[in-house]
């Protein structure tokens, strides 16, 4: 009896193990490689639609690979990726802007894409991209990304408000002085001339820089070793941005609390007439206020930057994590995302301009009311110095601008302190 029971137990165990082994092997054989595609855009319409379209299309065309949704948030995208990288569990593909590339590459968190690019044809393959944009993907001789969008800034203005203020909507301001003049005329009946960003976010540089650089100022000396903020040009540019709020009073109150989205909300609800904005802003206005007739009312023009024609540009890119377990599959997903068809579709869905030359020069962009103006700004696009110390200098710049806005310090004192903080960040004794 006992022997029978023992036999029964052993038999059951053998059969059980066999079943588990066979099922496990079969499952492993049929298992898809999962590629985590991380971006803050999973939570934002209409970009979300472009991502879902891509995910669906890629997963259908590639049965062995599954693109997975992996959410980050704009404000802490680096935080999420750093924490995950330190745990060697970062998303396979992650979305950043140009400022983060040297910092993440320096820490070894990014996969060098050079070997993949070589396999695709090297320079011939790379020639499809805007070469200025590609510079932001290179660090110490390696290529860590292929840009997927170029985001130059332009002046966006409400033509209806122009007409009401007696201004010609076909003649937008072309100089900083004209901008002040227009903004003063537009500031009436509880409405303000221009919306500025004053809160602690990257968007502040993007709006501040055209006036700062336009005045002929630079953050650093040409060798990036010392601060160049002690020049009359730097003071002119700095003072101009701050005084739009403090002296000319053409900016809504609470500028220090205003981020990009707050300014867009004010434009969409017609509390503000102009802003320095990005290409996708018109679509966002429409999403914020569906009753706002964006295409009829809004127009775009070059940023009236001053002596030097210049605009800020932001480059967006995906990177592949150095800790991905499936680099080949990740590259396949990556390549598909930056392909012409996907990039063109992205423009159609959420209005962003690709860094691919064939997409940038496509009739869809050349004939688009807003895109053609933004595309014309790209050659004048400039970025902040790509050095590891930049985030600290950038933060000190925000501090100085906020001190100017709030009146904590005079523009002269705020800039002087910024000059000192910049040199301290660079290790200048």
């Amino acid at each position, binding site marked *: 009896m006992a022997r029978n029971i023992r036999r029964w137990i052993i038999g059951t165990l053998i059969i059980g193990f066999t079943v588990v082994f066979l099922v496990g092997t079969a499952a492993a054989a049929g298992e898809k490689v999962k590629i985590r595609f991380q971006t803050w855009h999973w939570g934002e319409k209409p970009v979300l639609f472009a991502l879902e379209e891509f995910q669906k299309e890629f997963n259908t065309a590639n049965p062995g690979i599954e693109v997975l949704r992996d959410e980050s948030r704009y404000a*802490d995208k*680096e*935080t999420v990726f*750093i924490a995950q990288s330190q745990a060697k569990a970062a998303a396979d593909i992650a979305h950043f802007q140009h400022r983060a590339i040297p*910092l993440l590459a*320096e*820490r070894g968190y990014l996969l060098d894409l050079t070997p993949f690019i070589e396999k695709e044809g090297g320079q011939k393959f790379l020639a499809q991209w805007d070469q200025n944009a590609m510079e932001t993907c290179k660090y110490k001789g390696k290529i860590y990304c292929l840009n997927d969008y170029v985001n130059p800034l332009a002046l966006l203005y409400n033509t209806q408000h122009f007409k009401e203020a007696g201004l010609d909507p076909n003649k937008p301001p072309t100089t900083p002085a004209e901008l002040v003049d227009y903004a003063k005329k537009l500031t009436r009946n509880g409405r303000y001339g221009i919306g500025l960003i*004053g*809160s*602690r*976010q990257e968007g502040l540089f993007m709006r501040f820089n055209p006036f700062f650089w336009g005045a002929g100022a630079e953050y650093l000396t040409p060798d990036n070793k010392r601060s160049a903020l002690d020049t009359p040009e730097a003071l002119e540019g700095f003072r101009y941005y701050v005084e739009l709020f403090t002296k000319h009073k053409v900016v*809504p*109150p*609470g*500028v*220090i*609390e205003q981020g990009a989205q707050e300014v867009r909300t*004010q434009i969409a609800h017609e*509390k503000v007439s102009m802003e320095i904005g990005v290409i996708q802003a018109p679509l966002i206005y429409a999403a914020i206020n569906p009753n706002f007739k964006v295409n009829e009312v809004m127009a775009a023009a070059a940023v009236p930057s001053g002596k030097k024609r210049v605009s800020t540009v932001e480059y967006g890119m995906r990177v592949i994590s150095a800790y991905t377990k499936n680099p080949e599959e990740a590259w396949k997903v990556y390549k598909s995302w930056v392909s012409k068809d996907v990039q063109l579709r992205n423009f159609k869905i959420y209005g962003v301009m690709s860094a691919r030359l064939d997409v940038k020069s496509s009739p869809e962009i050349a004939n688009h009311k807003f895109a053609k103006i933004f595309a014309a700004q790209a050659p004048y696009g400039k970025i902040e110095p790509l050095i*590891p110390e930049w*985030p*600290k200098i950038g*933060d000190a710049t*925000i*501090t*100085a601008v*906020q*001190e100017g*806005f*709030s*009146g*904590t*310090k005079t523009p002269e004192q705020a800039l002087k302190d910024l000059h000192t903080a910049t040199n301290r960040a660079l290790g200048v004794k």
Partner: protein
Amino acid sequence: MHSGRTWHDRHFGYLFVLPATLMLVAVLVFPAFITLKASVTPEGGGGWHFTLTHYVNAFRDPVLAQAFKNTFSFVAWSMAGHFALGLALALALNQALPGQTFFRLIALVPWTIPDVVAGIIFRWVLNPIHGALNPLIQMVIPSFPAEFQWLSSPTLAFPSVIFANIWRGYPLVMVMLLAGLMAIPRHLYEAAAVDGAGKLRQFWHITLPGLSTIILIALALDMVWEFRRFALVVAMTGGGPGTLTEVLSTLVYKTYFQFFTFEYASAMAIMMSVVLFILSLPYIILVGRKQ
């Protein structure tokens, strides 16, 4: 005398605390060690090369000095506010009033709201264009500016953040004090009343001494929590205007995750922990004595 217990009996208990000990080592000791090691590692370096440069730099950093100053001020005012409001409400809610349970629940609501949400709520309430506060004040004082700037003002931004934090955090102190009040025997008050003691004397000679231990514990815990307050400040001001509302936790976060200077941020975090430990000593000693 031999207790009769074997070695096995005496040590068997350790086996039961082993999982908890391992867990503590994993989530507390290990990260603390890693942070301490990072704080003495050269920037971008690794291995076992050590330096005290980050600590030397920290003592010369004006932004860190400002953050320390702001943090102490933030903690002191928050604790004072939590205590004053918490005690007042605890005394009120300890009275036998109709709807007592309902009011106790209502008073707890701010504690249930996450920091970030509380920060965003206050940011909107205080917004000069769309906020609810300015129109409310205008109803009482018609001459009050319609677009008054609270969070953009160098003098009012910090008090505004502290006010929001007092609102968000008083229920914890209130609940602890209420529990303490409920534990004070009623007959002490009855005897004092028979002896002719008024409400104020009863409060001074019975309530306060009866609550003294709870007050110390509540304030010590509050201090530790407020010292680490992060999300509320980030959501309301991001440390601005300038660095006027920058506190240690926001600065450490920024230095680590935005400036990518992991080692310097670790040194700041260690300094913050040391200060916090020193400030917590009275609580630690008190708890030790009680045990």
